[in-house]
C-alpha cells in the first residue's frame, strides 16, 4: 500500500467513526443549524420596543409633540404614563421600564421664553451598553426636535452641524456584523468537537497503540485524522454561509475565493489545535475539558461580540494566537467591506503559522505521549 492509499483508508475510517454513531451525527448537524437561526436573530445590539414610561407634568402642545416623537419611534414602546415621583423607582427597579422621561411643569413655559427647557431622562444602567444606546436614540430624537423647533420659531440653530455617515453598514444593522461572526463561531465549535476527542478516544480504547504499530507514518496519521474535521467544517461552513447570504440577507460584497482561502486556513489551524488537545489528553474527560478551555476563550476574546480594541494591551496580545480573531476579520471584510486577497494577507499568514505549528506538535505528540 502506498502513502495515499493508507491516508485514504484512515480518513474514511475516521469519518465513519464520527458519523456512524446516530447520536453523534445528530449533535453535529442539528444544533449548529438551530443555533445559526436562533443566534442570528437573538444576537443583536439593536434595540426595539424599549419599554418607556412618561411622566409629563406639563401637558402642553410642545411637550406632547416631543413625547409623540419618542413613542412613535420603533425603538420605544410606551408602557405607562405616570403622575407621581414615587412611581419612578419601582418601575425601573422591577425592570418594567428601561427609561422614564420626565418633563417638568414649566417645560413649555421655558421653551416658549427661549430658555433651555430641561427634559430629564432616567435610564436603567444595569446593562450599560443598552443604556448608552438608548441615550443615543433619544439624543437623535431630541436633536431633530430642537432643529425643527429653532427653525419654526426663528431661533438660531447650531452654527455647525454633524453629518455622520456610517460606511459598509449604512443602516448600522448589528445583524450584518454578528451573522458573519456566527459563521466563524459555529465552524470552530464543530471542528473542535470533531477533532478534540479523536485521539483521546482511541487512546482510552487502546486502538491508538495499534494505529502506531501499523506502517503508517505520523504525518500520514496526522493527515488522516485531520480529514474529517476539515471536510465536515467545509461542508457545514458552506451551509452556514448560504444561510447567512440567503436567509439573513447579509450582503456579500467581496471575493468568495478570498473567503474560502480564509476558511481553509482557519479550519487547518482549528484542526491542529483540536488534535493537539486531543493528543495531550489521556482520558476523554480531559479531552472535553481541553476543548472547552480552548473554545470558550477563543470565542470571547475573538472580537465576536466585544471589540478587541477595547481590551487591555496585554489581552490584545493574547488574541494574536487565536485563529478565530483572523477569520472574523476576513468574514466581515469580505462580506461588508468587499475585501479581496491583498487586503486580507495579514490575516492569512498568522493562521497558516498557527496551523503548521499546532499540526506539527500534534504529530510529535502522537508518538511521544504514551502511557
Amino acid at each position, binding site marked *: 500500500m502506498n502513502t495515499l492509499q493508507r491516508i485514504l483508508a484512515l480518513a474514511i475510517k475516521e469519518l465513519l467513526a464520527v458519523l456512524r*454513531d446516530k447520536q453523534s451525527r445528530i449533535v453535529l448537524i442539528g444544533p449548529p443549524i438551530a443555533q445559526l437561526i436562533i443566534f442570528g436573530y437573538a444576537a443583536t445590539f439593536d434595540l426595539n420596543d424599549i419599554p418607556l414610561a412618561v411622566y409629563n407634568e406639563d401637558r402642553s402642545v410642545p411637550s406632547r409633540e416631543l413625547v409623540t416623537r419618542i413613542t412613535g419611534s420603533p425603538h420605544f414602546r410606551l408602557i405607562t404614563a405616570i403622575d407621581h415621583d414615587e412611581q419612578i423607582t419601582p418601575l425601573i427597579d422591577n425592570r418594567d421600564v428601561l427609561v422614564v422621561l420626565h418633563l417638568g411643569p414649566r417645560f413649555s413655559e421655558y421653551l416658549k421664553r427661549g430658555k433651555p427647557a430641561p427634559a430629564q431622562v432616567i435610564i436603567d444602567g444595569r446593562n450599560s451598553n443598552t443604556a448608552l444606546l438608548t441615550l443615543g436614540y433619544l439624543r437623535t430624537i431630541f436633536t431633530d426636535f430642537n432643529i425643527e423647533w429653532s427653525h419654526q420659531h426663528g431661533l438660531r440653530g447650531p452654527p455647525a452641524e454633524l453629518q455622520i455617515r456610517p460606511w459598509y453598514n449604512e443602516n448600522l444593522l448589528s445583524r450584518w456584523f454578528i451573522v458573519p461572526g456566527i459563521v466563524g463561531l459555529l465552524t470552530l465549535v464543530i471542528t473542535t468537537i470533531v477533532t478534540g476527542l479523536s485521539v483521546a478516544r482511541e487512546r482510552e480504547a487502546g486502538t491508538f497503540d495499534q494505529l502506531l504499530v501499523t506502517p503508517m507514518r505520523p504525518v500520514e496519521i496526522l493527515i488522516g485524522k485531520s480529514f474529517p474535521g476539515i471536510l465536515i467544517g467545509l461542508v457545514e461552513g458552506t451551509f452556514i454561509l448560504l444561510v447567512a447570504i440567503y436567509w439573513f440577507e447579509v450582503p456579500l460584497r467581496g471575493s468568495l475565493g478570498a473567503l474560502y482561502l480564509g476558511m481553509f486556513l482557519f479550519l487547518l489551524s482549528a484542526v491542529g489545535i483540536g488534535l493537539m488537545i486531543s493528543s495531550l489528553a489521556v482520558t476523554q474527560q480531559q479531552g472535553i475539558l481541553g476543548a*472547552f478551555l480552548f473554545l470558550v476563550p477563543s470565542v470571547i476574546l475573538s472580537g465576536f461580540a466585544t471589540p478587541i480594541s477595547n481590551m487591555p494591551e496585554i489581552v490584545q496580545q493574547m488574541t494574536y494566537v487565536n485563529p478565530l480573531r483572523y477569520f472574523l476579520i476576513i468574514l466581515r471584510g469580505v462580506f461588508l467591506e468587499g475585501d479581496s486577497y491583498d487586503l486580507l494577507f495579514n490575516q492569512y499568514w498568522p493562521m497558516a503559522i498557527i496551523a503548521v505549528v499546532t499540526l506539527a506538535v500534534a504529530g510529535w505528540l502522537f508518538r511521544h505521549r504514551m502511557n
Partner: protein
Amino acid sequence: MTPLATRRMRLRGMIRKESLQILRDPSSIAIAFVMPVVLLLLFGYGVSLDARNVPLAMVVEQADANTASLVGAFQHSEYFDPRPFENIQAAQQAFDLREVFGIVWLRNDFSRRLLSQGDAPIGVIVNGVDANQARITEGYIQGVWQTWLVDFARSQGVELQVPVVLEPRIWFNAAVRSRNFLVPGLIAVIMTLIGAMLTSMVVAREWERGTMEALMVTPIRIGEMVVGKLVPYFLLGMGGMLLSVAMALWQFDVPLRGSFWALTAASALFMLVALGMGLLISVVAKNQFVAGQVSIVITFLPAFILSGFIFQISSMPEAIQVITHIVPARYYVAILQTLFLAGDIWPIVLSNSAALLVMMLIFLGLARRKFHKRLDA
C-alpha cells in the same frame, strides 16, 4: 439497622466514592477552582464595551482658530485619539486599512460658513461594520460636538439657544462602566460551563467502564445514586462560585448592593440547575464522546448569547424570547445583575429563583427517570 440508617450508610458510601474519584482525578478540582479564576480574569479584563482612545483621522483643509478649537475638543475627549491627515484621500486609505475607525472632515469653507451662514457641515465617516461600536462612537462624537458648540458660542459672546436640553441620569451605574454588568453576567456563563462540565460525563463514564453494572447489583436506590453523585460536585461548584464572587468584588470593583445571602441562595439554586443539566446529559448520552459533544453545544453558546448577559432579551424577536426561557442562565443573569447593581429587589430575585427551582426539579426529575429506564433496558 433501621431503614433510615442503611439509607444514610448507602448515601454516605456513594458520596465517599464520588469524592474519592474527584480527588484521584485532579481535573475536576481544576475545573471547579482554577477555571473560574482564569476565565474571570481573562474575560473580566478582556470583555469590554467601553471604547477608549478610538483612532480618528482629522482632515482639516484650511486650518484656523475655529478648526483648531474643534480638533482640540476631540483631543480633550478621553474617547478619541485624533490623528491629523493631509487630505481626505490619505485619511480614506488609513480608513480602508482599519488604521482609523472614523474620519472627521472639515472642508475649506468651514470657518466661512460657520461665521456667516451658520450652517457649517462637519463631515464624519465611521466604520459601520461593528454597528454597536459605531453607534456608541456616534454618541461620543455628538457629545464632543455639543461641548464644542457651547464653548464656541461663548467665545463669540453669544448664548447658544438650545430649545430642549436632555438631562440623562443613568441609575445603578452612573459611570456607565460596562464591566459592572459584564462581570456578573460572566459569572453566570462560567458557572453554567463548570456545572455542566463537572457532571456531564460522570454517568456516561460508569457505563463505559462497566462499573454501572457493579453499582446496580448493590442495594443502592436510584434517587440515592443521583444525590450521591451531586453532593460532592455541588460543594466543589459552590467553592468556585464563592471565588468568582470574591473576584468580582475585589478584583473588578463591582459593587454588591444586594445581600450576600440572597446571592448565595440564588447561586446554590443555579448550581443545582447546572449540575442537573450536566447529569441529565450524562444519563441520556450513550457514551462520553456524545456527552462531551452535547455539553459543549448546549451549554456555552446559549448561555453566552441567549441569557441577556450581553444581548438584550427584550429586543429579540418574540419567538426567540420564548426560547430564552429554557436557558437557565437567563434567570441567573437577571438575578446577578440586579443583586450586584440595584440591590435586593425581591420581585425580580424571587420570580427568577422560582423559575430556577422549576428547572432544577425538571432536570433532576428527568435525570432520575431516565436512569430508571436505562436500568430496565
